Structure formats: C-alpha cells, structure tokens
C-alpha cells in the first residue's frame, strides 16, 4: 500500500512584518505647549482634498495651518512628511473610562433575592415591587463622573484607535443616569472632563427580581416618571409665578427628569436590535422627549423613521460575527473527506464484497482506491435543503448588518458611531467591513468627526482641523482607513502621543537550526492507556529541512513504521502514525510539546480517545 508523506519543509520563512503600535511618551511631561506638525498631508474635514500643510497647535488649540506657516521657535517639531493628518475621532456614545460597578456592594433591599429567601423570615422591606429607586435601576439623578477613573485602560486603548473625545454614560439598568463629555487625555480623572451631565442614558434593562424587570414594566415606569416630571415642572413654574401655591413636592427621580421633559437634555436610548429601536421610538412618540437612538445595530429596518430628522442616530461599532459552520466546515472538509475516505477504504477492505453498503461499492475491494471511496461518501452524505436555506438567510442577514452604515448613508440619514458595545481591537476591522459593504471613507470619517460633533453640540470646537478648533489630530502612516494604515501620533487637546511602529521579524517557528536541535535524534516514549503502558522509541532525522521519522515498538509487529504529516511549529510537534491492530487500521495522532530533552503531550486514537504521552531523548544525532 502506497502512502503519501506530508513532509513540511522547514525553511519556509518569510519574515512576516507585524506592526506594533506602542505609545512611548505617555508619562513624559510635555516640554512645551506648542506643537508644529510639519508638512503633513492634511485632510481637514470629511470630503476635503488632501493638502500638504503645517499645523501649529498651542495650548490645546489649532492656532495656524497652511503650506508656509511660520513655525514658532518654542514649537516641538513633528516632521510629518508623507504622513496623513485627520481630525481626531469623536465617540458619540460610550463607556470609555467608566469603571465596572462594584458587584460586591450590598444591595439596599432585602438580601439574597426572593429565590433564596427563608420563607419563615419576614423581610425588612415589604417587597421588591416597592423597591428603592436605586434597586429599581431608576437613577436619572446620577452623574457618570464618580464612576470614571483615569486609570481605566479603555482610555488609552481607544485613543490609540484615533479617538480624542467621547460622550460617556454610566453603567446601570433602566435609567443609569447622566452622560458627560470627556477628552481622552490627562493626568488625573478631572482632566478628562469637559462637559458634565449633557445627556440622559436609558435602556431596556430590567432590575431582575425587582420592579421593573421587563420591557413592559420599564415602559409603564417611564410613562409614570415622565408624567410626574411634567407635573412637577408645571408646579414649580406656578410656585415661582403665583401666590398661595403650595410648595411643589420633591422627588429625586422626577426632578432629574425635568431637563428631559423640557427637551433641554436628550435621552440616549440604547437600542441595539430592531425591536429595541421600535419600542424606543414608540416611547418617544408617546412622551415626546428628544431622543437619540444609540448603539443601533439594526436601524436600517426602520430607516424611514429616521428620515424626518427628529430622531438622531448613533450606530454601534460592534458587528455580528460570522458564526456559520461554513468556514470551519470548509477547512475541515478536506481533512475529513480524506480521513473518512481512508476509513471507508479500510472498512471496505475488511468487509466481504456482498456486504457493501451501496451499489458503487460493489466492485472488488482490492481494486478500490481513494477516488472511488470519495464518490461513495459524496453519495451517502445527504444535504439538508432546509439547513442550506437557513444558512443562506443567515449569510444575507449578516451582510445586511455589515451594510447598515452604507445603506443609511446612501439614504442621506445622518448618523454617528459609538463605541459602547465595540471592542477597540475590532475597530479598524469593523470599519473596513462596513466600507467593504457600501460605506465610503468620507462617510465613515464624518460619522466619526463632524456628525458626532454636531450631535453633541461641539461642532464649534471639534470635528475638523481648522484654526480655533481643539488640537485633536490623528497622524497616520497612510490614508486612515486604508489597509495597513497605522497611527503614528495622536494629538489630544495639544497633548502628543507617539506610537512606535516597528517591524518585528516573526519567525514561523520552523527554522532548521532550532528544529534540528529540538527534535533530531532518538527518543523513548510512553503512552499511558487505562490498561497498560505502551512503550517504544521514536527517531527523527532532519535532511535539508525535511523531517522524517520512524517508530518502533513491541506492539508494532507488522506494517509501516514511518511517521506521517510531521509538523513542527515552535516547540509543538504533531505527526500521525497508522497502526495495524490485528487487521484493523488505526490512525494515531500525536501532539507533543518539546521541552528540550523531554516531551509531553497526548495521542489521539480515533474512537478510543486520547491518552497522555511522555518521552525523553536517548541520543542526539551524529553530525
């Protein structure tokens, strides 16, 4: 029987360039308040042409810009020839810098939740249905400020992605509280804050075992709160203006919602899914607050409702993942086909010809080859049309999610991006995915600069590179959304952050020198199966980058002793070996970790399972 060897040449090297961005000057104090970004290719605003200009920034402001501006003597000079400068990004909706709530903190209500309550004890509070505002998750009076910490990693992470400004909201349940505007730069937490309490944050998050726990409870509670805040506002007005009016009653939650009722404060309603959005829109229609649908992942379904412009929109930077088995299947398919073909082949050999499972297998077993067994397999694996249709629909849905931004932009619906549900590591990938699905780079840039600036009412200060604007600039090695573009500098309100781009040589772990040292020679091994220890020796030789190996054991009395599919990656070694067990062929798959003079790992023996293997080197090769 002829066998193929899958020998992996070990000298395929390829120095894969990996770009690693590293902030290098985080803790260094700024020497001067003036920076000159010299001869950068400047894109001053979305849609503006590229112009080679020098930008002068002083005390956190852009003070001059042009092709031939005078560079002040005290300026820290940043040569930017061949680099690109963009207005830094503004995050319309996020929790950058916000700590996770202390989950260990004792709750105000009865302990332990109703499920664990001792039936014989009488709770101090009558029931969760009449819980405190805090327990109910109704804290519109709360500001995000006390939960922000300069030490939060998210600040540097998102800054490294190009963000200079963020609208951040507190964590919590139904109405967690008020959002603030922060600048992603500073030495202490207070440095971050620009505008406090600019928004009200709301979401469809119930209070668990406490009222309101469901979307219907939340909706009812909103109606009541809004009604009462409206009533309180009217009372306060008449108390101020008229005589003999009793002093208005005070309720912390109602009081905090008065700016919402007056439409001075927008409600950022977190509504990722289409039903979340339609319910939030229904609430807006019912109560009339100024609403920003936020963290939206499925807004295109309801795009007509955003056309009038009454409702603003912040899209999520999170995108659904392709969880279909297709990719995995494709990768596995070949391997599996091969393996099954082999198994079938072996099975077929063991079975008398008259017992063959189908017509194509009627030919004499000895004449069988891999090709014919593959035909058998293809004929016997039934495709499930229902599942196929399902996968098709899912792929379509996935595509629609990726197309959201592009579709809305095409419809002329303004939107910003928010990072609340996004991961900084996925930012570039996801923006590119959206751009591959219809979003233009200008549209992407405006959703990250001018649109959020407008939404947050800071367009006078932020969003473009212009004289008088805050010195928030991204300096990138290539046009910002292009492949392999890397941020070289971030300037956040005049503070410079440098990101070192170094090309790291990543070896593929298959260098011959180490390979030789690592595995060449003779090894003893021990496989521990439940009933007994099986021992033997392995011998590897390395010739011009090709590793070959053989196995010897008292168990192996006949057949091939050559190892197959030998792959050495770093210090992990994998190979297979076909064992003839009294007429039955078994494939043993070894996965070993090489620790110098010894190894450990496991061996997979088909349906019998996986067993531990250990071994030692008994002799080195003779050079």
């Amino acid at each position, binding site marked *: 029987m002829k066998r193929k060897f899958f020998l992996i040449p070990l000298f395929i090297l390829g120095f894969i360039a990996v770009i690693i961005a590293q902030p290098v000057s985080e803790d260094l104090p700024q020497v001067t308040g003036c920076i000159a970004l010299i001869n950068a290719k400047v894109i001053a605003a979305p849609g503006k042409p590229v112009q080679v200009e020098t930008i002068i920034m002083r005390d956190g402001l852009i003070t001059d810009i042009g092709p031939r501006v005078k560079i002040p003597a005290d300026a820290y000079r940043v040569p930017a020839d061949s680099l690109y400068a963009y207005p830094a990004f503004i995050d319309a909706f996020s929790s950058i810098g916000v700590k996770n709530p202390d989950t260990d903190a004792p709750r105000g209500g009865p302990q332990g939740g*109703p*499920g664990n*309550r001792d*039936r014989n*004890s*009488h*709770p101090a509070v*009558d*029931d*969760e*249905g*009449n819980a405190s505002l805090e327990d109910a998750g109704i804290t519109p009076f709360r500001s995000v400020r006390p939960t922000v910490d300069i030490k939060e990693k998210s600040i540097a992470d998102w800054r490294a992605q190009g963000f200079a400004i963020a609208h951040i909201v507190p964590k919590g349940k139904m109405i967690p509280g008020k959002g603030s505007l922060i600048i992603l730069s500073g030495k202490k937490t207070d440095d971050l804050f620009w505008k406090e309490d600019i928004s009200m944050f709301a979401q469809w998050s119930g*209070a*668990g*075992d*406490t*009222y*309101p*726990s*469901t*979307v*219907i*409870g939340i*909706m*009812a509670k909103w*109606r*009541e709160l809004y*009604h*009462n805040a409206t*009533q309180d506002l009217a*009372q306060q007005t*008449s108390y101020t203006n*008229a005589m*003999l*009016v*009793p002093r*208005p*009653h005070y*309720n912390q939650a109602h009081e905090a919602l008065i700016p919402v009722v007056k439409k001075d404060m927008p409600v950022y309603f977190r509504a990722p899914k*289409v*039903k979340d959005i*339609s*319910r939030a829109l*229904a609430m807006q229609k019912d109560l009339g607050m100024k609403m920003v649908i936020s963290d939206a992942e499925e807004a295109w*379904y309801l795009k*007509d*409702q955003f056309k009038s412009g009454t409702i603003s929109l912040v899209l999520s930077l999170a995108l*659904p993942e392709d*969880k279909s088995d297709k990719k995995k299947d494709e990768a596995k398919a070949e391997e599996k086909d091969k393996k099954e073909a082999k198994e079938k082949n072996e099975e077929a050999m063991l079975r008398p010809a008259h017992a063959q499972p189908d017509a194509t297998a009627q030919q004499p077993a000895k004449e069988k080859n891999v090709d014919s067994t593959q035909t058998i397999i293809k004929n016997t694996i039934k495709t499930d049309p*229902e*599942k196929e*249709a*399902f996968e098709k*629909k*899912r792929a*379509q*849905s*996935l595509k*629609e*999610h990726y197309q959201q931004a592009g579709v809305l932009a095409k419809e002329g619906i303004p939107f910003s991006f928010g990072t609340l549900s996004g991961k900084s590591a996925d930012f570039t990938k996801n923006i590119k995915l959206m751009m591959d699905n219809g979003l233009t780079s200008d549209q992407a840039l405006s959703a990250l600069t001018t649109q959020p600036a407008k939404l947050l009412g800071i367009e006078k200060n932020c969003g473009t590179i212009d004289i008088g604007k805050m010195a928030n600039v991204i300096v990138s090695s290539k046009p910002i959304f292009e492949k392999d573009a890397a941020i070289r500098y971030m300037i956040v309100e005049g503070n410079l952050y440098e990101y070192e781009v170094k090309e790291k040589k990543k070896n593929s772990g298959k260098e011959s020198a180490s390979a030789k040292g690592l595995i060449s020679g003779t090894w003893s091994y021990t496989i521990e199966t439940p009933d007994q220890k099986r021992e033997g020796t392995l011998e590897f030789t390395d010739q011009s980058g090709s590793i070959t190996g053989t196995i010897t054991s008292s168990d192996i009395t006949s057949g091939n002793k050559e190892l197959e599919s030998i792959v050495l990656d770093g210090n992990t070694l994998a190979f297979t070996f076909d064992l003839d067990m009294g007429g039955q062929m078994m494939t043993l798959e070894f996965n070993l970790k090489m620790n110098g003079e010894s190894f450990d790992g496991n061996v997979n023996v088909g349906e019998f399972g996986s067993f531990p293997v250990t071994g030692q080197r008994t002799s080195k090769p003779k050079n």
Partner: protein
Amino acid sequence: MRNIIFLSLLFSFHLVVGQVPTGDMIIRKGTVLTITKGTLTETDILVQKGKISAIGKELKAPAGTKEIDATGLFVMPGIIDAHSHIGIDAVNEATNPITPEVKVGDAIDPFDMAIYRALAGGVTTSHAMHGSANVIGGQCQTIKHRYGLMDPSAFIFKDAPRTLKFALGENPIRVHGEGRGVQPRTRMGVERVIRNAFAEGQVYRDKMKAYELEKVKNPNAVPPVYNERYQTMADILDGKIIIQCHSYRADEILMLMNVLRDFGVKKITFQHANEGFKVAPELAAFGAMASVFSDWWAYKFEVYYSTAYNATILTRNGVVTSINSDSGEMIRHLYYEAAKTQRYGGLSDDEALSLITINPARQLGIDDKVGSIEIGKDADIAIFSGHPLSVYAVPQMTIVDGIVRFDKENDPSDMRIYIDPEEATPAYYGREEVDECMRGTDLMFNNRH
C-alpha cells in the same frame, strides 16, 4: 393564488408607520358560514378596503379586483383566540402582586413565528394576555395577525377595548406568597389583595376628581402625584377596562363576582374557569362570560376537577362562552377544539363555531368588527377545504383586512422575517417556544410545582 403572500409581504415591508394595509378581493362561490346569519351556499363575498362590502350570489366586482375561487370550499370568519400569549416578548412582570399599569402591547413581537402558525390554523385575531403570576397582572392586547409587518404597532387591533388580566388561586400564591414571602399566601390573601387594590383605586380616583373640580376654580391647583397603577384601577372602576380573570375553581369565581359587586365593576370574562359549569347560572346572572379549554384539566391540584361538557353547560345556561388555546400550539387547531363540544354536549354547528368566533369577539368587545361574516365587518376570513368542524378539514387560506396572510399553496418552510445573524440554529430546529401563562416567572420560584 401563488405569490399573493409574497407580494403582500413585499408591500408591507415598506409600510409607513401607523398605517395598516388593507386589500380588495372577491371570494367566489364558497359555502359561507356566517355564524350569525346562517350558512349560504355558492355565495360570493366582496371585500373593499379590508371590509366586507357585499355578500351574495354572483356579485359584481370592480374591474381588476382579485378573485379567489372558493368553489367547494368553506368560508368562515377568521378564528379568534380569547386567551393566548403569542406575539409578545414579555408576559409576566412578576415582581409585584399588582401591576395593572404594565401593558403587553408595549412588547409586541412582530417576528414571532407563532403568529404565522396561528394564521395557518385560520386564526386572525388573538388576545395577547399578561400572564397569571400576579393577582392583578398587566393590560392585555388584542392583536390582529398581520404577519409580515415590521412595525409592532401595526398588530394592534384598532379600537379594541382595554382588557386586563387578573389571576386567582395557585399561580399568584406560588409566585408571591411562596416565592417572595409577601401577600397573598392563601386564597384569602388573593381576595384581600384585590380589595385593597380597588380601595386604593377609589382613593386615587376621588383625589383626581377633587383636583379636577378644584382646577376649574383655581388654575394653580396642585394635582396628586400621578400613579399609573392606581389610575388603571380607577379605570377599571369606571368601566373602561374589561377584566379577564384567570380562575379555575367555582369558589374563587364566586368570590371575585362578590368583590366586583361590592365595587360596582361589571365587565368580566373568566378565563379557564374549569369549574365554571358549577356556577354557570351565577355567571349568567352576573353577566360574566367564560373562556375555557375544550378538554384540558388535572394538570395541577386546583384544576383537578373539570369536564369536557364545560363549554356546553355554560352555553346552555346563557353564559357567553369561548374556547381558547393559551398555547402557541393549540392555537393552530381551535376548530378541532370547538368540534369537541359536538361530541361532548351536542352543540349545533353554529353554536360550536361561535365558541371560536363571535363569542370571543364579544368577550373582547370587538364583536361589532369581527367574529362573523357580515357586511361592514372586517374582512378577516378563513377558508377551509371542508367543514371546519370536520377532522378532515384543512385550512387553505387566511385573510386579514382583505389581505392574504396565509396561503397553503404558497407556504415556504421558512417564513421568518427577522434573522439573527448569530443564531446558532434556526428557531424551528427543535426549540420549544413556550407561550403560556407563567412565562418569565422562573426567577420567582423557590422550586417548580
């Protein structure tokens, strides 16, 4: 008939909010079971703008009107389910024994496949109810099965009266008394909770009335703090809401009628009412209605005792009675459930079919719009291959507001509108949907009973 659904769905996707699509059609030569006006053979029904505009032989229709050939088929009013939990995402706000302020209509799920399944059983309207975890649960929502629309509000049955769930017996006792250590712990407690809530409603109503009077004289009058919960109780007292009460035992049914008498509340339908037959004359005297299962009982202690003759006995005693599903599965074959009353009790065809058409419509206060085939009513129609009370009958087509929403000839295996791109397996792959009274209450139990 092919592609009608497809086209109607396509049309619906781009619907402007607030509008509900209606259609024109003429259904030719069917055996029309009007329910209220007898059975008409080889009769045409003309539908214009979603309403039945003419019924008769060889009717003339405006040129271009869609024709549906019902020769040899049976045409009946769309079936109405007086008790279900399909098409909503939240069933129980089980955190308080009294939550009349919550509305399941705020949680309509336009993508619930159960709506389409219901259509496949000829059901055009259902009463999406709050669950039975609380003594006074939330407000229910009568919905039309306009499957294919994205906008939740498009499912709302326009101008249907407000209805509200009450629940007696073991469920609220289990959730609140046993589960949360609060009243009610017994059936006595259930009564007390209801009386207290009504009393609070009265106090609140009095305060509001006093304020309204004061406001006429004094523009600076101070309103009471708004309380949606007691405002809703006041609305019940004022007869603006029909109570739909989950109940099983005769004693608790009598108890609630006594409470309602004390507070002057008249509008009530008892749901389940498995022992309703024991107090049928009392129900009739009160003017209370009953919506029952055909033959389902003994699934827990308080429903130990019932009979498949329940619907018949109630009907014969003059109680407006319906048969409901309380299930996303049983809703598909309510016509079988109705037929059981012919085996157990010998109801006539019209009486049996009334249990799933005009009677539930009366209980929901929508009998002026649906529940029978009459000129001026909504064109909600189910077409069957045979007589719907025959076990051999198969629903062929279901029409809502003159639009075909189910067509057996064009019934793709996957009718989902919304697809979660990260869903591991399709919703119809072995996942059991539970659309029932106690949905969402697991959290509240010490242990399941």
